[in-house]
């Protein structure tokens, strides 16, 4: 059974988990020469979630999605650095840390919403009490 009230938060959690992955890759590669920092855009993911058919239809495991498109329709995009570095690395630690913290809080928020939904569903199932 697909409960719409839950699935929207599940999608949000999935996006946050994926962004957590991308941002942690940035922080991990803070000292790697020529690494280009990437990020996911929430508005983009929302647009992708609204029009489900944005991805290419894959009928085989060997089919590739369009470049940079995740399964949820969000695009990994390269960050534009405010300052250039000699080694070609575009990770700016303060930006990444801030984004990582923000994303973690958003994840917790989605989690809290989902928790509330589950609680109210359970409350309804039990008929109060």
């Amino acid at each position: 059974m697909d409960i719409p009230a839950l699935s929207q938060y599940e999608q949000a959690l999935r996006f946050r988990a994926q962004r957590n992955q991308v941002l942690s890759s940035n922080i991990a590669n803070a000292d790697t020469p020529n690494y280009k920092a990437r990020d996911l855009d929430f508005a983009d993911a929302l647009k992708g979630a609204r029009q489900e058919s944005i991805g290419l239809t894959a009928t085989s495991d060997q089919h590739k999605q369009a470049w940079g498109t995740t399964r949820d329709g969000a695009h990994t995009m390269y960050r534009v650095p405010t300052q250039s570095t000699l080694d070609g690395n575009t990770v700016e630690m303060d930006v990444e840390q801030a984004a990582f913290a923000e994303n973690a809080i958003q994840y917790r928020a989605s989690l809290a919403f989902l928790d509330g939904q589950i609680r109210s569903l359970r409350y309804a199932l039990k008929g109060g009490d």
Partner: protein
Amino acid sequence: MSLFKVFDVAGSAMNAQSVRMNVTASNLANAGSVSGDPDKVYRAKQPVFSTLLASHDDQSGLAGVRLEGVVESAAPLQMRFQPDHPEADADGNVYVTNVSTVEEMVNMMSASRSYKNNVEMINTTKDLLLQTLSLGR
């Protein structure tokens, strides 16, 4: 569960940073060492990092850190005229290692801060995962 992969990414970065710390420690320990033979003098070593992508099509945005190897610095050695030195060569010269103490100290600070960042990242992600596990309790 995609959050688990963050541990791999952070782990690879911590591994790379700890190698960097080890190399820096060797460099600092050998700072100021001299030899009469320029081929035997200790040369500053530096680790080389590269990005380790999860796959070729790279949709997930996952990228770990790979240690490509440790290279020796090609910076010129300093030659010092010191005929009374027991290691001095026939002309009375000794060669001093090309380790720059200032550079190594900066390297050490950078490595330790990067390491800490990765530890923080693991802690935050661990919290998120634990909270997810207790969902609906």
